[in-house]
């Protein structure tokens, strides 16, 4: 997917739609949208060669804000839908995006099996440790003693989910963590995730300024990973188990062969596609 002399060049703006986001002012997801469009511009992938699939939630509104192929899917099911797209059209760059509720709670099962299946796609989770769209309930990544949710006013009392460790254990081929406040750094992570073969998982710490205003402090807490990424799962596991959750960078680069059944599709250009629709 490297830019070549035959590809036109694109700017981030070429991937944005006219639809104005309805996110709260200050939401981290604005910046993530910018990072994704910057990454696509950096890779010079024509918008019609990208499919962006989401589930349900604040961050899952993202496909409408781009002008690539997008689908606002079923709650928690972005990954199976993305798998179907990639398997039937392997030449597309497929990105699934959503939040921690969509991906780890109602869709937690699919997260594990998408890592295991290792289809060549990128999964971007905007993690704000809260269900934002239903107005502030604890998610699987919420600390057990967070008492601000009306649904769990005494805290959840249950152990938070550790998405990176689970991704590694389940077989994800690329694992990274970023921070929405660093738009360029996050764009680089997403670029690398898309380039890396197989299932790439990128956790983006993306503050919810409405229901988790304390997350504004994340900008002072994130720090670059102190070590280079490893391709050794055991080493990555030791690092991930002991990290503080604010370690930003590529944390694991695997070498598993991606899953892709069948033959590549025959259609390979917009011109060919348009021929099929000539009336």
């Amino acid at each position, binding site marked *: 997917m490297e830019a070549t002399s035959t590809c036109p060049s694109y700017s981030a703006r070429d991937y944005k739609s006219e639809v104005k986001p309805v996110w709260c002012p200050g939401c981290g997801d604005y910046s993530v949208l910018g990072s994704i469009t910057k990454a696509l511009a950096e890779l010079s992938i024509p918008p019609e060669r990208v499919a962006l699939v989401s589930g349900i939630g604040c961050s899952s509104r993202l496909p409408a804000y781009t002008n690539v192929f997008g689908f606002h899917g079923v*709650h928690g099911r972005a990954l199976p839908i993305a798998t179907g797209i990639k398997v039937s059209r392997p030449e597309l760059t497929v990105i699934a995006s959503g939040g921690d509720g969509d991906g780890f*709670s109602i869709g937690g099962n699919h997260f594990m099996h998408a890592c295991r299946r290792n289809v060549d796609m990128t999964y971007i989770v905007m993690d704000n440790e809260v269900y934002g769209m*239903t107005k502030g*309930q604890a998610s*699987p990544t919420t600390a057990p003693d967070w008492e601000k949710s009306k*649904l769990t*006013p005494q805290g959840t009392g249950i152990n938070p989910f550790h998405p990176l460790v689970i991704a590694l254990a389940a077989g994800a081929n690329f694992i990274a963590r970023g921070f929405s406040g660093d738009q360029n750094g996050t764009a680089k992570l997403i670029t690398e995730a898309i380039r890396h073969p197989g299932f790439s998982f990128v956790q983006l710490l993306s503050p919810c300024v409405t229901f988790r205003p304390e997350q504004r402090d994340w900008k002072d807490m994130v720090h670059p990973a102190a070590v280079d990424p490893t391709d050794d799962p055991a080493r990555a596991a030791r690092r991930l188990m002991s990290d503080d959750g604010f370690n930003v960078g590529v944390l694991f680069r695997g070498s598993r062969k991606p899953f892709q059944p069948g033959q590549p599709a025959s259609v390979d250009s917009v011109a060919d596609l348009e021929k099929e629709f000539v009336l």
Partner: protein
Amino acid sequence: MNTTTLDTAPTTEKRPAPQLMLCEGNEAAALGVALARPDMVAVYPITPQTSLVEKLAKLIADGRMDADIVDAEGEHSVLSVLQGGALAGARTYTATCGPGLAFMFEPYFRTSGMRLPLVMTIVTRDGITPQSVWGGHQDAMTVREAGWIQMYCETVQEVLDTTVMAFRLAEHHDVMLPVNVCLDGNYLSYGTSRIEMPDQAEVDDFMGHKDVNWHVALDPLRPMAVDPLTGGSGGNGPETFVRYRRGQCAGMKNALHVITEMHEDWARRFGEAHRFAPLVEEYRLDDAEYAIMTLGSMTGAAKDAVDEARAAGEKVGLIKIKTFSPFPVEALQHALRGVRALGVVDRSVNFRWNCGPMFQETLGVLYRLGRQVPAQSFIGGLAGADLTVTTFHRVIDETRALLERAPSDEPVWLNAKD
């Protein structure tokens, strides 16, 4: 609950002044749940249901309700958790809507097969796609073949009262079926209204002895496995299967008289503010030549339109369906006795018949009437669209026209831009 208390003397004179409150439909549902004293609730937020389960969480956290609460990872888990709870003898409750109900469908269907007396509020929301978080009846209507009892409410008070009654209904030995209390998303869920809180001690007496899972023998000397795989056609599998289905249908049929007796008992205990038609409400029908039929919160605006039409000399009445499942065939036959034209307003779509689901169910009742009644399907209020008094005047006008001409095979799409 085998015994009903129809022989209880009216207590009007001794009744203390009711506690008055102002609350939303979702809050009323939660207060009704608390009055019924469930042992376990499982929750997952979804618009427009969220404030209901948040209120339950608060009641529990504040010590006003003694129930275990499980904050599950999705609706499928919510209902599965409750199945476990009910099998273990707990009185159980949850609420959901729209896509959440769709996600629940696998355990939803099994709940009635296992005769588990769960109560679940559906804060009705239209079916997606297209994506919408707004009200409509498509969610509840879509699951109407799954063996649950479904009652639709018109007002916030009816939400509260029906919620309490739902537990006694579900657990009644002649019924033993799960119950949905349906309240319109947005209109009733967030609509604020004055209510009278029933007295807890009187509710406790109404509910009687808690006896949730009498059909599952919790005998420590004789553990039993519930719902093992039934065999194929070579064995007794199909026979067992038919026995289950017939039992479910019998429970449904019994529910009609249990619902009626229960509503009467409830009104007798708590007063006229708590009197609701159990199956079918007949409004200004006595000398009506034609009638319109409604479900849920739209009924308020429809009654206003009927009143205005009556004032203008129209002989129009209204039929409100409260209990949709089991379908109140006899009660509806009674309501339709003098009606010569009928307009049925649905907030959902029956794709098979190109009409509204309540309209299609009513056709069966018209057949049983044994006379031709021209009937027209109206579909409106989809995805939160308003059904106003003006809308119902149109329904009344088009229904009156059926006295002169044949109805259309096409539904009338209210709120449509042609």
